[in-house]
Structure formats: structure tokens, C-alpha cells
């Protein structure tokens, strides 16, 4: 393995376009690139959880997630890679940044960003990582991906395996997402109802004679609640 790595390092250094994957790199070159991108991803992930600057953490998360997408690409799983970018970088991180901007995340360090659970979090993270690595290594010890042949992770292959072999988990996941969606709607409606109820209660003793005025905010609140729920 080691001599192969060292010889491949010379070829990999000459051809840095790893994501291309059309006859540019020898298989061991892809391995080198995989390792390097993996290191970058790991480093970005570490910075994400250790930096004291909130928005920087979100931006380092982008690097980590993007690095993961490149790893998928190197394993010829093109579809998964782009979905990773689309969902995580394009939507989840944007939502995260939206939240940070809405709460006016300060420029510079936020000393109160540390919750004091540093060691507990580290223990849980190491345990989870160890379990995952162990399971994956144990399960795919003898599996090799032929990087030279037809793409093993093309959209057609992924779709076929998803809807032939893994239909039940797929459907179970969609039910889970539906449940989360319904839960979000219920929560937001409840929050709206509790904020409008005291307002209506406060309005009634002041103006007992004019009944339309306390009714008006309630009538306004219903379509507003629906919009907030979506």
C-alpha cells in the first residue's frame, strides 16, 4: 500500500482536478485525493464546533458539507453528491444563516456561545464516531468500488436500488418527514393562539359595549396563523 501511495502522490500532484474523474487519475490517485479531501472535511468540521464566532461556524459547516459532497463524487456517487449540496448547503445552511441573522449574530467572538458541556459533547461525539466507523468498516471490509468502470453510483443505479431494495425504509422516512411537518404546523398554530388570546382578553374589559373590535384581531389571526404554519 505504502509504495503505491508514494508513487501515486507524484501523479496526483501533477493533476489536481480530482472531481473530473474521466481518465485523469489513476485509482490510487483518487485514493490520495479522497484522503486529502477527508482531512480538509474533518478539519472544517472541527473548526465548526470549536470556533467562537457563530457565523464562521456556519460557513465552516459549508466547507465540511461541501467536502463530503466531493468525497461522494470521488466514490462515483454523483447523484448523492449533488443532492447533498442542494439540500445541505443550499437549504439547511441558508436556513441556519437566516436564523443567525434574525437573532443578529454579532461580528467577532460570542463568549456566551459555550454551553459548558464541552467534555460531555466530546465524549458523545467520539463514541458516536467510533460506533459509526466500526460499523461501516465491518460492513464494507471486502467491498471494492471499481472506479474505472461504469459509475457505480449513477442516478439510474441509485434510483433502481432505492425503489427496488429499499422501498420500505424510503416510505418510512417520508412518513417521518410528514409527521415532522404536521408537528411544525401544530406548534406554530398553538403559538399563534396563545399570543392572540391574551390580547383579546385584555381588549374585552376596556370596551364591553363594542363587540366587533375584539372580534376583529381574532378574524385577522386565522389566515395569519395559516401563513405562519406554512
Amino acid at each position, binding site marked *: 500500500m505504502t509504495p503505491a501511495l508514494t508513487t501515486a502522490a507524484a501523479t496526483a500532484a501533477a493533476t489536481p482536478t480530482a472531481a*473530473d474523474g*474521466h*481518465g485523469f487519475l489513476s485509482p490510487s490517485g483518487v485514493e490520495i485525493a479522497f484522503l486529502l479531501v477527508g482531512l480538509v472535511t474533518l478539519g472544517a468540521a472541527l473548526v465548526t464546533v470549536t470556533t467562537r464566532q457563530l*457565523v*464562521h461556524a456556519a*460557513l465552516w459547516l*459549508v466547507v465540511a458539507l461541501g467536502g463530503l459532497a466531493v468525497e461522494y463524487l470521488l466514490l462515483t456517487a*454523483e*447523484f448523492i453528491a*449533488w*443532492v447533498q*449540496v*442542494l439540500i445541505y*448547503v*443550499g*437549504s439547511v*445552511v*441558508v*436556513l441556519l*444563516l*437566516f436564523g*443567525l*441573522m*434574525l437573532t*443578529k*449574530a454579532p*461580528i*467577532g467572538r460570542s463568549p456566551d456561545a459555550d454551553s459548558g458541556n464541552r467534555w460531555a459533547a466530546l465524549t458523545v461525539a467520539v463514541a458516536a464516531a467510533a460506533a459509526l466507523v466500526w460499523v461501516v468498516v465491518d460492513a464494507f471490509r471486502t467491498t471494492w468500488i471499481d472506479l474505472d468502470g461504469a*459509475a457505480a453510483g*449513477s*442516478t439510474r443505479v441509485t434510483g433502481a436500488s432505492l425503489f427496488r431494495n429499499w422501498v420500505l425504509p424510503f416510505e418510512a422516512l417520508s412518513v417521518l418527514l410528514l409527521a415532522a411537518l404536521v408537528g411544525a404546523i401544530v406548534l406554530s398554530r398553538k403559538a399563534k393562539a396563545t399570543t392572540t388570546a391574551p390580547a383579546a382578553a385584555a381588549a374585552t374589559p376596556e370596551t364591553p359595549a363594542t363587540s366587533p373590535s375584539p372580534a376583529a384581531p381574532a378574524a385577522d389571526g386565522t389566515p395569519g396563523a395559516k*401563513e405562519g404554519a*406554512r
Partner: protein
Amino acid sequence: MNDALDVALRLLAVFVAFLLLPLLVGQTEHKVMAHMQGRLGPMYAGGFHGWAQLVADGVKFAQKEDVVPAGADRRVFQLAPAVALLPYLLVLLAVPIGPGDGAVGQVLDAGVFFVLAVMGVGVLGSLMAGWASANKFSLLGGLRTAAQLLAYELPMLLAAASVAMAAGTVSLPGILDSFHWWWVPWQITGAFVFFVAGLAELQRPPFDMPVADSEIIFGAYTEYTGLRFALFLLAEYAGIVVLCGLTTVLFLGGWHGPWGADGLGWLWTLLKTAVLAFVVIWLRVTYPRLREDQLQKLSWTLLVPLSLAQIALTGVVKVVIQ
């Protein structure tokens, strides 16, 4: 060696297109807006009808001082224009201009997902700029950008998914290969949704709430000067080129045309893209800006249901014709 040369030539061609086409759209916007408003527009720079106006603008931007506000987050502030601009260059790489594998920068298996994913990344640039400027107008602009992206990403994806369903593939050249002329009326709702959602993602009028000059100066780009500001402007025009090109490829048949599709297919692509770019400029001159709540309402109560209906229609027709 031959492979390397081929790849280098393709990259060079895409890069030249990336530099030229946005400038062309920008100059067209100057002239079309001017004529729609009963004036001439730039007439002096370069001699003939002011064709070199944007080159002159570029020289002017390059000469300006590059200012970073004292309270700003320096690195994020300086990185933001690149994050906003580069994704569009990458997207252009995957857009096929003619028939066959020779007329696309890089054939991608999951092309539709690639272009939508990378276009979404471009918005991160605006968010970074909005936050890092240490300016409340910039922050508001960034917030509006994020809200707009979250609202319009979904209908855009659903509309693109409808075409992918119709073609049975998510590769852009593959979609064009299986195109028939009757796809245009079949997918017209999806085309409308995709184009409108794309306009909103680019923050072009009437969806320019994030840069509404009468309310928040210039949104996320308020603090930018010189070349970095020019890069943001370039990103906007590159975005127009990419959006129009994608709408052409996905919904209007790309290089397909009534005649001459084999030899002059690339001309059809460019023509359709140019017409769509004209529509984008036309909308800017014609429509007033949508308010924030109107923006959200349009997406969630009109575009999302329309795109879902389009997917249902696509599925039904697909089953019937099989």
C-alpha cells in the same frame, strides 16, 4: 495529451462565454431600458451606439478604492463576491448548447441537480455580504435574500423535476435528446414556475425586495465598492444568462428548432436564451416591485400548487402515452 487539450479548450470556451454573455446582457439592458423609457441610453463610449459603455464601467470600477468598513468581518466580507460569482461559472459548464457530447462543457449524469444545487450556493455570497458588512441595511437585505431563496427554491425544484420525469433522465443533454415539440405546451406551467422562481432567486425586478433602493439602499451590497461591487453586478448578469439558458434547455427544447437543428443548433439555443433575457429586462422596466408579503404569498399560494399540478399532469400524461 489530446484529452487534456480537449478539456482545456472546453474550459476556455465556457470561460469566454462566461465573460462575454453577461456583458452582452448588460449592454442590452442599458439600450432596451433606455428605448422603453423614450431615451437613447449610452451613446458615446466606443463610438457606435455606446457599445463600449460596460468596458468603460469596468475600467472605472477597477480604479476605485477597495473599502472594507472598520466594523466589518474582513475575510467574509472580501470572500463574499467570489462566492456569489463562481457558482454561475460552474453552472455554465453543464449547459449544453448544441446536439451531441461536443457542445457541452462537461456531460454530467445528474445535470439538473448539479445546476440547481450550485445556483443555490451562489446565494450564500449575498448572505455573507449582508452579515459581514456590519450595516443594518445590509443585514436586512441578507435576511430578505434568505427568506426569498427559501420560498422559491421549492417551486423551482418541483418544476425541474417535472421535466426530468417527462424525459426519464436528469442529465441535461439527455433531456434535450428526448425532447419533442409538444413538450412545450405540456410543460408550459412548469416553465412559467421555473422562470418566475429563477427571477426571484436572482433578485431581479419585480422580485428585487432584497436590494430595494428606496428602503434599504442596496441591501447586502450597500458597503461594497470598486471591483468587488462590480463582481456582484457581474454575478447578477451571469445569473440572467444561466437562468435563461436553463429555461431554454429544460422547457424550450434548447438546440431543437423548426429547421437546421443539426448544424445550427447552437444558434437556436442562443436565440431562445436571448429572447428570454429580453423578457427579463422587459419585466424590470414594466412591473413594480412586489412587497415582502406579496412575494411570499406568490410563492407559497401560487407557484408551489402550480408546480405540484404540473407534476401530476406530467405523471398522468407519461403513464397514458406509455
